[in-house]
């Protein structure tokens, strides 16, 4: 048996990533996800003024700062049950949607799709079409994606002044109201993105796209000129021809924190979402209510001061304990939901929310690299629809408050959490304030869930499981690993505390 250990590094992800793989006869039998960087954000926040979290936590991640800001502000609001006016929730949702559009399009067409332009595939019947569409800096869809995502984030700049890294959500609301000028400008951006998505990405009107009822209906559309020759259609046909709809399912259990706070019913203590939150039990095949108290993090295989089992983030600690020559291999903690290893992201979001087409494809074929990518592009339709509704609601309530300044201006001591569905999945902030300063801050990012290392029981994380069984033809150019890992939309800077082992990882025999 030919046994090979290698560390693969992957570009075109947000942040840098190395993966330790053990191959036997060219097939992955063990995988370890290894981050390569440690900055210590949670320690940097300690002792600072509570509102400073609104400035510092967006800077954890350049691609999802709006989601961090949203989680931070709702965590602070949770402490004092601060009232938030509906228009503030609408503006927050709108900006989160704009950031999501940016992410979903860039991830799909700048990061995931170029793998199909690998010379490996030069003889495939679809190759030339993919070069024309997705070749970096040259392909038509690639260039259009650069232009359209530039437009999409203008929406954040209208309310937050800039994207990325602004701090326009404040306890009690947002810093700037909607007016007819900003609404018209945002409608213009959305109309352009929507038209492009209909014509170029899915090849049909949004209503028709959202109305596709099931897997059978979708697969029939794939053979028709409209969707078949669209950008998603091209990707779907090639990815499925390569078998990506049957590989890299990872773990069956999923969590979603629910998408977009319901402006009329959400409060910092009544968590009502427009697309519901939930835990999808992959064994039972049903969705159960989400209970954040079940979230806990293990450090058994991480370079932190050891503790037994898992700890809820409010009891969490981030105390480095570098042990390079042990079976600990990463700075990432291992989050678990109860004792379950879960995946999160657009697939989890749409399965939990019950999008009929995504649910049907999931039932028919199971979780896969292709389905995760499909769900990311599918979610754009929901984002566009929700953005339209949100602008209509803002237009109908132009005189409404955009901020209710908390009484006394300051924040009381206490504990709070903020959960948000970021582009990559569930993002949570847990904060404790003592004597008017931050005394504890724990961030559990989507990539922490998905790229989790092994836990106290030795259970591998979702990515680690998704890689087992993948055949790698050329270890110097492991495009198969690229397809799988990029389908997870990895954000390595988002894992907050990650560090490379600095060595190859070997395991038995």
């Amino acid at each position, binding site marked *: 048996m030919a046994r090979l250990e290698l560390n693969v590094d992957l570009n075109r*992800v947000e942040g840098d990533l190395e993966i330790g793989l053990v191959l036997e006869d060219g097939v992955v039998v063990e995988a370890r996800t290894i981050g390569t960087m440690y*900055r*210590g954000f949670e320690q*940097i926040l*300690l002792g*600072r003024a509570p509102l400073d979290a609104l400035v510092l936590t967006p800077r954890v991640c350049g691609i999802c700062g709006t989601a961090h800001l949203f989680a931070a502000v709702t965590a602070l609001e949770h402490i004092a049950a601060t009232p938030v006016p509906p228009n503030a929730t609408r503006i927050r949702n709108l900006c989160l949607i704009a950031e999501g559009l940016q992410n979903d399009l860039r991830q799909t067409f700048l990061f995931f799709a170029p793998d199909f332009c690998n010379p490996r595939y030069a003889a495939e019947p679809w190759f030339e079409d993919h070069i024309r569409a997705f070749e*970096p800096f040259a392909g038509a869809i690639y260039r259009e994606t650069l232009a359209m995502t530039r437009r999409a984030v203008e929406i954040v700049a209208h309310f937050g002044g800039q994207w990325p890294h602004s701090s326009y959500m404040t306890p009690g609301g947002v810093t700037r109201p909607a007016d007819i000028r900003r609404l018209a400008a945002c409608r213009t951006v959305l109309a352009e993105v929507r038209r492009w998505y209909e014509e170029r990405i899915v090849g049909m009107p949004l209503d028709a796209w959202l109305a596709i009822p099931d897997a059978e209906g979708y697969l029939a559309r794939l053979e028709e000129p409209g969707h078949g020759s669209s950008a998603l259609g091209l990707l779907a046909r090639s990815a499925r021809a390569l078998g990506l709809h049957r590989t890299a399912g990872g773990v069956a259990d999923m969590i979603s924190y629910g998408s977009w706070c319901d402006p009329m019913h959400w409060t910092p203590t009544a968590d009502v979402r427009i697309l519901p939150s939930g835990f999808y039990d992959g064994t039972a095949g049903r969705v159960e209510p989400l209970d954040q108290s079940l979230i806990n993090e293990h450090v058994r295989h991480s370079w932190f001061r050891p503790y037994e089992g898992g700890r809820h983030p409010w009891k969490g600690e981030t105390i480095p304990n570098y042990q390079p020559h042990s079976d600990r291999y990463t700075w990432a903690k291992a989050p678990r939901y109860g004792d379950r290893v879960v995946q999160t992201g657009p697939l989890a979001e749409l399965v939990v929310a019950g999008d009929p087409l995504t649910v049907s494809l999931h039932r028919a074929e199971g979780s896969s690299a292709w389905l995760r990518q499909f769900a990311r592009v599918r979610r754009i339709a929901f984002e566009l629809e929700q953005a339209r509704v949100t602008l209509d609601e803002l237009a109908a309530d132009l005189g409404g408050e955009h901020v209710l300044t908390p009484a006394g201006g300051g924040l009381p001591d206490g504990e709070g959490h903020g959960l948000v569905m970021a582009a990559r999945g569930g993002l949570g902030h847990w904060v404790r304030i003592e004597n008017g300063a931050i005394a504890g801050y724990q961030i559990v990012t989507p990539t922490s869930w998905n790229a989790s290392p092994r836990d106290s029981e030795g259970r591998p994380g979702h990515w680690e499981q998704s890689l087992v069984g993948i055949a790698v033809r050329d270890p110097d150019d492991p495009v198969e690993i690229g397809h799988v890992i990029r389908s997870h939309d990895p954000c390595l800077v988002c894992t907050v505390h990650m560090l490379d082992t600095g060595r190859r990882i070997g395991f038995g025999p």
Partner: protein
Amino acid sequence: MATLYWMQTGACGGETLAILGAQSPSFEMLVSDFGIELLWHPSLSHVSPRRHEEIRHEIVAGSIPLDILCVEGSIVTAPRGTGLYDSHHGRARMEIVRELAERAGVVVAMGTCAAFGGVPASGPNPSDSIGLQFLHDAPGGLFPPDWRSRRGLPVVNVSGCPTHPHTMTQTLAALAAGSPLELDAINRPKAFFNTLVHQGCTRNEYHEYDVEDGALGGRACMFFNLGCQGPMTQAVCNDDLWNGVGSKTRAGVPCFGCTAPNFPREGDLFATDKIGDVPHRLPAGVERARYMAYKNLARAAAPERVKNKTMDV
């Protein structure tokens, strides 16, 4: 053609995402129209990992000329000066930066982290982060103060958190064209760091008459109470609007002074330290007694429409 290699160190990716928002020129236009040949960018390149290693080795060996090296992120030196808290295949990235920089025509620090240490270097600095040629506003970076790149330049500090998109693309356009680049006292290209964020702020009439907000979400000036650093911070944010449409101060978010070497400053970022009623830090170059006299007169002269905060911003 000018070759460009982009490297991320202790980064959040903010400069990479911000530069994709640039329009005049855009990042892709640097490649198609401004003579830049992109050797590598971690988020955008599509060569295989093996080919990337070869490119890097060929640069270090001198067989591929490197004209511009962009570094995004702080230089992580922990633990104990080894830099292994930020590594690439077991090598400290700090060392990779060092060997590439020796070959580069010019080294550009993209963002405050690479220039001065930035957020990772704040507070307890858990990763022992430093900038390329500075730690905050003093020597102590990866390279000593007298270090010069092949073209005879110190590290060019294109600071910001993130850096303004056009400050990045227009600096790169100038470097690719071989234009002379005048630098300020902390090695920032003067063309982008010789105007204050305050200039062009739509809240200026409120500032002028000393009509100040005490809570976020209002229309008035944020300098006296809400920690706004606009009058002390050099950047083009209110001159060349972000994403073509806005700036933080226009949107009611105080300027946090993110292009400055001490960003993020200690103390509450949404509060202004004061001596009596007047901010401890005054606009660049202003004398306190005269400023107080001017503000008292200005407040007295404020028209009702400003005093009552009825003017939109």
